[in-house]
């Protein structure tokens, strides 16, 4: 059991959940966790200084040690923070890679939500992203 097999949408009979209609949100449930196991465990490995050194020295060779799908590997190599979540990543794990890169959570948040760091930071200073208009997917579809 490697836990790395991507599960094709629609063929494995994912059970609908009442949180599926929250927009822009990837709830880290069992299906998500199965898909992202190797990706998240790669990120987790960066907690250890010697692993950070090894990843710095030979990024490709280091990634070979983890059973990532080609899509996950590309997302890591190209630092596609949103795609990592869509491929099973969990933010607390993928943020280990951001820490490795010297990024802050606001920089990653800006990337995932498609705005500049300055825009994201100012949004937080102004009180954050309002819940109003952001609770349901249909509210986003309308815009």
């Amino acid at each position, binding site marked *: 059991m490697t836990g790395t097999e991507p599960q094709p949408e629609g063929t494995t009979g994912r059970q609908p959940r009442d*949180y599926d209609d929250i927009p822009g949100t990837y*709830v880290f449930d069992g299906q998500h966790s199965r898909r992202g196991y190797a990706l998240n465990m790669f990120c987790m490995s960066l907690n250890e200084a010697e692993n950070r050194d090894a990843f710095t020295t030979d990024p490709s060779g280091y990634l070979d040690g983890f059973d990532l799908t080609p899509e996950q590997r590309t997302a890591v190599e190209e630092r596609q923070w949103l795609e990592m*979540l869509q491929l099973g990543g969990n933010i607390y794990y993928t943020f280990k890679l951001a820490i490795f890169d010297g990024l802050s959570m606001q920089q990653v948040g800006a990337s995932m939500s*498609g705005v500049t760091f300055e825009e994201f930071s100012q949004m937080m200073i102004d009180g*954050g992203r309002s819940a109003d208009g952001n609770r349901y997917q249909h509210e986003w579809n309308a815009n």
Partner: protein
Amino acid sequence: MAEIIAGVGTSHVPAVGAAIDHSKGDQPYWAPFFDKIAPARDWMAETQPDVCIVVYNDHASAFSLELIPTFALGVASSFPPADEGYGPRGVPAAEGHPEMAWHLAESLILDEFDITIANKLPIDHGCTVPLSVMYDQPESWPCKIIPLCVNVIQYPAPTGNRCYNLGKAIRRAVDSWPGNERVAIFGTGGMSHQLQGERAGLVNTDFDLAFMDRLVSDPAGQAQVPHTEYLREAGSEGIELVMWLIMRGALDDQVREVYRAHHVPTSNTSNGLIILENAVSVTDPAAA
């Protein structure tokens, strides 16, 4: 017997720890926040609990996806700060209280809360930042610490009701400990925040203030709130607030709100702090 004297609810934002560690408290961004927590620090210095039970969640530091305990209690004699990828925070190791912690573990399990027992538990910002919020930068933490780690990362987190009832079981366990320790219990995490996805940056101050109101006056009702309401209203990481219900469950049904603070933003997070004392302290001579 030992006594739970108070509960503290507080966010555990890494950036707050970094601001303390790097003496940024006077900067314009941080000064308003630290002004708001100053009275809580004064209360802590005056109250001086012997033991703090810190309910927090690990963030891929001590536990990975290899093993995901819903509740894990630290019974070690010492808990070092974890390396979360930056190198460990420059804060003291937390001195544990193995005798009391083992009593809690035994009592909880016999009370049908099948808790995981952790002899090795590096503590990450989830545990160390609340200590820094309440104690600032002492050379050593002025209390013994029993960490209680809760899974809130892998869905599903324990329900609010389970957390609230665990708090009640902790209360029974502390009450049955023969020592005379004065114990504070921290519920940490939250308040509203979403770190991930296109909806990153969500903050819901109305939800947060209502949560604190209900935590005080109707915790059993708040304990019935389902996960999806937290996810939708308070953001994907706002689910951490269920840990405040463990703290609340360990207190009397009637509590006195000693202090409350709320501040937006600290990094990406709506930051809350509340201090609750039992409405009638058993050590209050007037109640004897």
